[in-house]
């Protein structure tokens, strides 16, 4: 315990001697706070965007945030059970998006998706879920299980390898071109609420994400398998002694994570209207940041972290950067997300909620 505490203590500020590291960290904090506050004030003073535009930013942030939340769940559950950053999780998302694409595009061409949106979406999601889950389980079996008891950077490097392998496999099978996702007419339509235009696809994505995540939460909290999973996350050895089959729990975890990734992949592709082999990388990294933000290992934390990240990266460019007069701020959206990721890793590696669980792990 004392070792763990020692580990997390950075060089301390002592009276009369401030370490340069602390100075740098503090200036980093101050810089980010300055950008946030000065930018916000600048944006308010400039008043460049209408209320409807701000509403659009928030709506988009919630939509993309719901997707990040779903991806983050996969990271957080796997990390909780295996203490492994499943680097390939973003690519599992990509697999789901591709599978959905190959169902959606013929359905769209035949007009089925326009006439029967519910059945069409069900079919797309079902195929995506199955594909992502199968691939997630295969990667677990082939690439991760052998590293179960290996410490150090080996498992992470293997996971990076899996990520590349999956990307390049899809590139080889389906080509490197960007494929545009079908967009049936009901998706493009909007409806008005309090004078704002709400795109239907946003409502659909957010609504379904809430339903699926609530389902997942119930499964983890109420079922026997979910209880076993939480037990393994708490203490794998003790759980094994209590007669819990850890292998089964791991498979169960990857099943849940893979299913959520498949759904997220379809949604992500619907929102950005395209699929290509490298598409999983960026949302994957961001969602990992969201998982850490919410406290890795914590399921509600991942959900909140995802939504928060989505909001920040959607509203941020116009709010912080535009206010400072930076040209084309939307290009720097990823910059905001990555900065948030790094700030979280540096300053709050335990996340906002994950204090209790993270204590044993750092």
């Amino acid at each position: 315990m004392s070792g763990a505490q020692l580990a997390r203590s950075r060089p301390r500020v002592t009276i009369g001697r401030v370490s340069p590291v602390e100075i740098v960290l503090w200036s980093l904090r101050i810089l980010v706070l300055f950008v946030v506050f000065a930018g916000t004030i600048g944006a308010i003073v400039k008043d460049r965007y209408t209320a409807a535009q701000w509403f659009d930013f928030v709506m988009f942030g919630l939509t993309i945030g719901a997707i990040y939340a779903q991806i983050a769940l996969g990271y957080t559950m796997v990390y909780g059970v295996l203490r492994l950053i499943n680097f390939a999780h973003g690519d599992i998302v990509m697999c789901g998006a591709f599978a959905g694409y190959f169902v959606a595009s013929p359905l769209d061409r035949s007009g089925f998706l326009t006439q029967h949106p519910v059945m069409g979406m069900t079919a797309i999601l079902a195929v995506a879920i199955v594909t992502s889950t199968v691939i997630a389980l295969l990667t677990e079996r082939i690439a991760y299980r052998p590293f179960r008891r290996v410490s150090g950077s080996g498992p992470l490097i293997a996971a990076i390898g899996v990520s590349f392998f999956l990307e390049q496999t899809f590139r080889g099978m389906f080509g490197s071109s960007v494929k545009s996702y079908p967009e049936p007419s009901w998706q493009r339509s909007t409806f008005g609420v309090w004078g704002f235009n709400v795109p239907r696809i946003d409502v659909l994505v957010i609504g379904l994400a809430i339903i699926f995540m609530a389902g997942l939460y119930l499964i983890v909290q109420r079922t026997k398998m979910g209880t076993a999973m939480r037990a393994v996350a708490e203490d794998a050895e003790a759980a094994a002694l209590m007669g819990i089959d850890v292998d089964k729990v791991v498979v169960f975890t990857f099943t849940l994570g893979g299913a959520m990734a498949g759904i997220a992949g379809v949604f992500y592709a619907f929102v950005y209207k395209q699929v290509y082999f490298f598409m999983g990388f960026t949302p994957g990294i961001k969602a990992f940041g969201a998982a850490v933000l919410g406290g890795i290992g914590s399921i509600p934390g991942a959900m909140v972290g995802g939504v928060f990240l989505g909001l920040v990266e959607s509203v941020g460019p116009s709010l912080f950067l535009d206010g400072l007069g930076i040209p084309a701020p939307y290009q720097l959206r990823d910059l905001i997300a990555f900065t948030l990721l790094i700030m979280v890793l540096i300053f709050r590696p335990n996340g906002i909620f994950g204090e209790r669980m993270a204590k044993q792990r750092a």
Partner: protein
Amino acid sequence: MRRIGIGRTGAWVTWRRTALVGLAFGAGALHLAAVGVLLMLHQRWIVIDTLSLGQATVLLLAAGAGAMAARGDGSRWLQGALGGVCAVLPLALLSRAMDALTLQPIFIALSPDLQAMLTLGLPPAAATPALLALGAVAGLVGAGLRAAPRLSRALLPGAVAVLVAGVFQELIQLMLQQYEGPIGAVRDFVYTWEGLTQEGAITVFLVVTLLAQLFGRATQGRVAAMEPARRRQIWAGIALAVIVVLPAVAGSYIGQVLMLVGLYILMGIGLNLEVGLAGLLDLGFVAFFAVGAYTTALLTADAPNALMHLPYWAAMPVSVLLAVCVGVLFGLPVLGVRGDYLAVATMGLGEIVRVIVLSDFGAPLLGGAQGVLHIPKPQLGSYTLSSPVALFYLTLVAAAIAAFIAWRLENSRLGRAWMALRDDEDVAQALGINLVRSKLLAYGLGAAFAGLAGSIFATMLSSVYPSSFQLLISINVLALIIVGGMGSLPGVILGSVVLIGLPELLREFGEYRYLFYGAVLVVMMRLRPEGLWPSDVRQRELHAGDETAALDAGADLLPARE
């Protein structure tokens, strides 16, 4: 069969295992076919009109399955044959499926050419049995070779020689092109323009086998008698001689390839300080490379956004210095971040650099997506280092200096401190090692080498674009360190030759390079985490009563892909 009661279940288990091993190899073959590697390999002859590299791959997979499946409890031959059949079964089914359905609109690799390869040019009804029979034969051969290790050891050098002579025929012919007389005659006998002739292949095989028989045993004995350290020195000497002499002899294409290898060696040495010695897994390494390249570009280029027009030799030290500064700046905030989180944080930093370079925000200085053009070549007196071979020697000198520094560092106080840090940060701190200083030095020195590589890279291309500095570069460097062996200098050289040089020489292979890298990372971590050429310390660590390599030996289903 011997014991009826348990025997039946026992036999069932054996046969099931045989089939599973075969099918695992088959899944590998199917994967290669689906991503298009198989067809690509098929388009390269080893022996002209007789055996393509693709066919050889399938046969080798089947033979491998046969060898793995043949456990040798009485029915070894049957097991081998069954393993071989199972290894080609997925391909046979794929071929049938391609007959029935048009799959190419979805799976772009499943082309008629692939079908032609899988059916061996036979009508569909005869093709499947023929393919399965070939698989069975290959499986039998594999089982046979396993049963007779002596024989297989005798045949191996010849087979490898034929494979190398066939695969690298373009290259070897290019090098032999200039000769006439006896060498020219031998060349014309062994090669046609596209690959080995049949009689050439047989000759190469026989000659090499004979030579191996005559001299192999003697040298083997002498090599075995040598101390491992001495053996390695000799190998390293040979490799060094080849690297130094080859480009001058073989012309500019080889020079270019080796120059790239040299750059990666330079970066590999840098990252090796961070990852291999200090244990700081850095995935944002490409940022330092980019800083070096952009600094050189902005200081020397004949472009509107250039800051100065310095000669190259003045810009290079500035680039290195600036890379060091960025390295330390990178290192400062992430000092307290550990292990896997550090990898993600550094990757985020690398991505931030890329996003800024690409954006309009950085465009006035850095040129946005267009980058910086017209970077002059370095001048040496009145001589301009413009040819790839000349630039290669520049890289070689730089890499040699870097290697020397790294080698001296490894056994210095600082190197020891890094290794202590890698093994246990808390203990290292308790022993009085200054964590902040050691870590920042690791980042700074690693960045220096990457900055140097970037500087040379900029003048090599005479232009820099953001698209040259993707995460993939970091992964390339990481992969070559891991393949070579973490913390091992000769490992870095070996890794860059294998991972950067080989795909560059097999040009069509380049497209599938990252597929291969991904598989290599997993397989290496699984089978040989210490790397191909491990450092002594690491070797001892990983095999001193520690079962890392032997973990879960029974749970292995991963076929050796590619």
